[in-house]
């Protein structure tokens, strides 16, 4: 397959930028600008992606991720319409005959629409008119309506119901996007990367839905401001907090409870939100535990908080953070968790220029230990920490050009292991070297409205990566990979800050939208993404113990080129939204592992890794019903994901471990009356590939399963299907009563399907020479649930 060359795209971008500047110098004279924020009238939350347009036209602006809009018009008086689905549209008259105007717009929730379910948070034909493609969006209200495991609403699980997104099974950490690995998704919570998004090994995600404002998954056509992963960006924005009144919401479920409180700061200077969750598995299970397990701890918790402070009309600062942990202790100790912090400064530099500066901290760590009363035992902890600084600008130059540019730097400290054994009063240290790296990027992009029908978004991201000391550097023999680990030919100690290896990449981005008519558009996109850090995992499902490692002198950055084409068509006044997208992804430097790879406590982890190429391609069909008592969607993805790595599968192409050729989901949400909602989801997909043993190796008379012909992923697990249903009973609506509540009754895995998570092989317990195949099903039965949610 011929590789996609970014050079031709670069030339196109240069041409577009040059033409843009030449046109623009004439266009900006004698115009005036109206700018400000669009907010929810009830809570004061900024609305992301709200539209402000000139009445009767399609000319207008869309609020950025901070709720800011800027619209430049020729001098005159205008009728503007601000709209956001689920909210009453607001019409305003503005006088731009002599000067720029600053106007914050507040929209009220549409009470009539609230009684229905809203499955998008944008304007009704946004999917057709917006230049974005390959973007999966779900608003939090919709996510809360979808049946959930044990009634606990989950953002990551909801995303897996969208086209192009899949998982390897229940209880698996993370998700796969268009044939990419879980480490190829950059998950951002208020701009901070979250390295492990799972509670309880993947059954629940770490994001508290009550504290989340906006969720957006970029599968392709990724804007230049994002980078660092090869497959997708999941951008989660936290609520700012109600700046109108004290408010709260929460829920009590079978596994955990949650509470969120938000309130304005005095003198209208801002607001804050605090949201916490804690599981009580250990408390519930205590009566059933043996006496020696009574002190056991099995719980997880998280705390999400955010505050914002208005310095003046032009400047505002935000401080947000997340801290969560899973704790399992019972003779042994095992815990893991993420911590993030984001300090952000929004500044309106001019009516057209919006600036954001963010200082970000992110940490993921785990600790594992076991000891006896004599103090003998084993301890191991691991951590990845990064600090980053971002400076971004949105320049709303005129109605036809909206430019984004900025730069960022991320400093990584990888601490793969602090480990020791203690025995007989003697401690043996197995700690591994820390690793350090600096990732940096600069970007510029322009969204250009070429005509009423054609909109382009094009940009360039330049990224770099510096692998730094102090650490032990391994130089490996240069050989064609054959499945065996390469020999170390030299090692040396790099000094602190010493540059060991650097990489640079040009990452062009391009999207185009041609609107054929009011309800139909064609879209195309191309993007190149470079990924400099990698998750070493050789198992079907990722585990909390998997190790992040940087690109180095031995590990090359992963790269992905993706092209996508799509047709978007709405029917019946946007009641039905449909799309078909096809994509092809060309992947380089994909990670594979040598035979018998030893990924734990290995200072020379790089010698366990071999790299090759990959390809993923597919078609995604999406049909969504937006209005009426019955809403929901159908999503079907036909796709393949394959890899070719010398040393694996005899050097031939093989199915990637997350390859699922068919993936169908159906989501239905039916409003029975003003009190009762019913929802159901059905998922049907191909089983994931698996490598089964072919022959038996007898060693000391014991049978050992071997794959004698080295065929990787040579079989496939049985097809996966599952139905979940839930009923929601809402309390009587009474405008004078602030307290509102609902009961949610659910059945997860409603017909008790035992889906295969994996098939492995073992000796029969009674007849040790006999071998048998074992199917592991994570969910063995139907899981009923009941939960109570409230808000005030």
């Amino acid at each position, binding site marked *: 397959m011929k590789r996609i060359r970014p050079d031709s795209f670069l030339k196109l971008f240069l041409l577009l930028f040059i033409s843009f500047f030449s046109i623009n110098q004439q266009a900006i004279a004698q115009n005036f600008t109206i700018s400000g924020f669009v907010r929810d009238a009830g809570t004061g939350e900024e609305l992301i992606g709200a539209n402000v347009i000139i009445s009767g036209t399609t000319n207008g602006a869309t609020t950025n991720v901070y709720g800011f809009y800027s619209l430049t018009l020729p001098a005159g008086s205008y009728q503007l319409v601000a709209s956001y689905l689920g909210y009453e549209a607001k019409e305003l008259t503005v006088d731009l005959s002599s000067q720029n105007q600053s106007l914050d717009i507040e929209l009220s929730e549409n009470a009539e629409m609230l009684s229905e379910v809203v499955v998008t948070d944008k304007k009704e034909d946004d999917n057709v008119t917006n230049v974005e493609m390959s973007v999966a969006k779900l608003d939090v209200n919709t996510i809360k309506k979808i049946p959930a495991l044990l009634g606990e609403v989950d953002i990551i699980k909801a995303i897996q119901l969208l086209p192009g997104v899949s998982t390897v099974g229940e209880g698996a950490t993370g998700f796969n996007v268009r044939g990419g690995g879980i480490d190829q998704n950059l998950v951002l919570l208020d701009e901070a990367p979250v390295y492990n998004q799972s509670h309880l090994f993947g059954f629940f995600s770490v994001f508290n839905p009550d504290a989340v404002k906006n969720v957006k998954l970029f599968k392709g056509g990724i804007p230049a401001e994002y980078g660092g992963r090869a497959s997708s960006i999941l951008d989660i924005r936290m609520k700012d907090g109600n700046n109108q009144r004290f408010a709260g919401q929460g829920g009590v479920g079978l596994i955990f409870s949650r509470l969120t409180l938000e309130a304005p700061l005095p003198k209208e200077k801002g607001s804050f939100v605090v949201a916490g969750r804690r599981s009580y598995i250990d408390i519930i299970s205590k009566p059933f535990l043996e006496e020696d397990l009574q002190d056991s701890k099995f719980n997880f918790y998280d705390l999400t908080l955010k505050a914002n402070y208005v310095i003046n009309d032009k400047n505002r600062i935000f401080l947000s953070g997340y801290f969560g942990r899973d704790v399992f202790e019972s003779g042994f100790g095992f815990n893991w968790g993420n911590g993030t912090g984001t300090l952000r400064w929004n500044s309106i530099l001019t009516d057209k220029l919006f600036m954001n500066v963010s200082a970000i901290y992110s940490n993921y760590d785990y600790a594992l230990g076991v000891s006896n009363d004599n103090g003998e035992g084993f301890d191991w902890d691991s951590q990845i920490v990064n600090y980053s600084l971002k400076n971004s600008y949105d320049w709303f130059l005129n109605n036809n050009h909206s430019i984004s540019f900025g730069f960022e730097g991320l400093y990584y400290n990888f601490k793969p292991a602090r480990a020791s054994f203690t025995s007989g009063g003697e401690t043996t240290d197995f700690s591994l070297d820390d690793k350090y790296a600096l990732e940096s990027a600069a970007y510029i992009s322009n969204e250009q409205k070429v005509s009423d029908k054609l909109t382009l978004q094009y940009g360039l991201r330049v990224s770099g990566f510096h692998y730094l000391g102090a650490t032990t550097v391994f130089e490996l023999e240069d050989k064609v990979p054959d499945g065996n680990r390469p020999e170390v030919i030299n090692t040396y100690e790099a000094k602190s800050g010493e540059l060991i290896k650097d990489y640079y990449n040009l990452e062009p981005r391009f999207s185009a939208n041609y609107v054929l008519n009011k309800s139909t558009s064609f879209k195309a996109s191309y993007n190149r993404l470079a990924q400099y850090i990698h998750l070493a995992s050789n198992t079907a*499902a990722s585990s909390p113990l998997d190790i992040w490692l940087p690109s180095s002198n031995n590990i090359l950055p992963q790269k992905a080129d993706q092209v996508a084409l799509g047709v978007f068509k709405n029917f019946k006044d946007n009641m039905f939204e449909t799309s078909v997208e096809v994509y092809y992804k060309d992947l380089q430097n994909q990670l594979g592992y040598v035979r018998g790879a030893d990924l734990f406590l290995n200072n020379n982890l790089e010698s366990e890794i071999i790299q090759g190429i990959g390809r993923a391609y597919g078609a995604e069909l999406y049909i969504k019903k937006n209005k009426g008592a019955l809403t929901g969607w159908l999503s079907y993805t036909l796709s393949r994901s394959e890899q070719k790595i010398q040393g694996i599968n005899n050097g031939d192409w093989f199915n990637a471990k997350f390859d699922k050729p068919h993936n169908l989901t159906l989501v239905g949400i039916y409003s029975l009356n003003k009190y009762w909602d019913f929802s159901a989801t059905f998922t049907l997909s191909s089983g994931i590939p698996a490598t089964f043993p072919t022959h038996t190796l007898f*060693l000391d008379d014991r049978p050992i399963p*071997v794959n004698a012909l080295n065929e990787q992923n040579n079989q496939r697990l049985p097809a996966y299907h599952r139905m979940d249903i839930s009923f929601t009973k809402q309390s009587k609506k009474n405008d004078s009563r602030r307290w509102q509540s609902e009961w949610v009754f659910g059945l997860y895995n409603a017909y008790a399907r035992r889906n295969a998570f994996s098939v492995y092989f073992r000796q029969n317990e009674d007849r040790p020479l006999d071998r048998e195949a074992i199917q592991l099903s994570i969910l063995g039965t139907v899981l009923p649930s009941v939960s109570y949610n409230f808000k005030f």
Partner: protein
Amino acid sequence: MRISYYSIVYFFIGSLLFSSCEDVVDIDYNVPTGTIYNIDAFINDGSFTQTIQILESPNFLDNSEPIPVENAEILVKDHLGNVYEFRHQTDGLYTWTPDSLGILISTQEPTELTVTIGSSSYKALNIAGNVPSIDSLTFEEDDFAFAEEGAVVAEFWATDVANEDNYYWAKMAVNHSYLDDTYDQNKLAHNGAYDESSDDIQFIPPVRSYDLEAANGDTVRMELLGINLDTYEFLSETFELRQNSGQFAVPYYNPRCNLIGNENSAEVIGWFGVARVSTFERVYDLE
């Protein structure tokens, strides 16, 4: 090294919460046809009978008795050129029994194995590693957190050979039957621990520790084998494959093989490993 604590955690929580289940299933999948020989050829310098077994490797889920290879010619040649012929006894087992001293095995020069089965012929070379003597073998009640009441742990006491990189395979047998290695009872060690950073140390737990089920009067025998890196890697791979299960299983693969066939030879799996050995026997007396 393998980490089994995680599996413990996962299965405890999984079974507690979600009744995760494991079912024995009948699966039907195509396995390529053709003979693949299974050669299990581990020998050492002990002055007792040495055994090599050759079978036709069955498909993994074929539980019928494996077909023994009874017509093989097996020769072992030490570094000085002495040849030891292994003769077939029964069920594909070939033995060589010393008159007094065992096979001369060097830690510097390779020992060679030649196996001929009809038109197939295989050669392999391997070098042994050094091994320390075992000082003692002790039994005591197990106070480990997960240990069942009354459980016994047996520990052998030895010190890593100083000033060199050493690899060991440690095996314990009760009444001449090796302990089931499904649960980490078959151990590998690097310098008495798990990596090159150790040297000249007393073997650490869990390398030296074995869960023991024995009755008073039983003979407990410890074998410590000095092997080389290649053999260590082969055994690591086979141990991983044997214990591979659950949510975090790795893909099955073909472990390395140091047996090189001639042009017309059938496929082969297995290993020729040579070792220096130390043994220690003690009668169990803790009951």
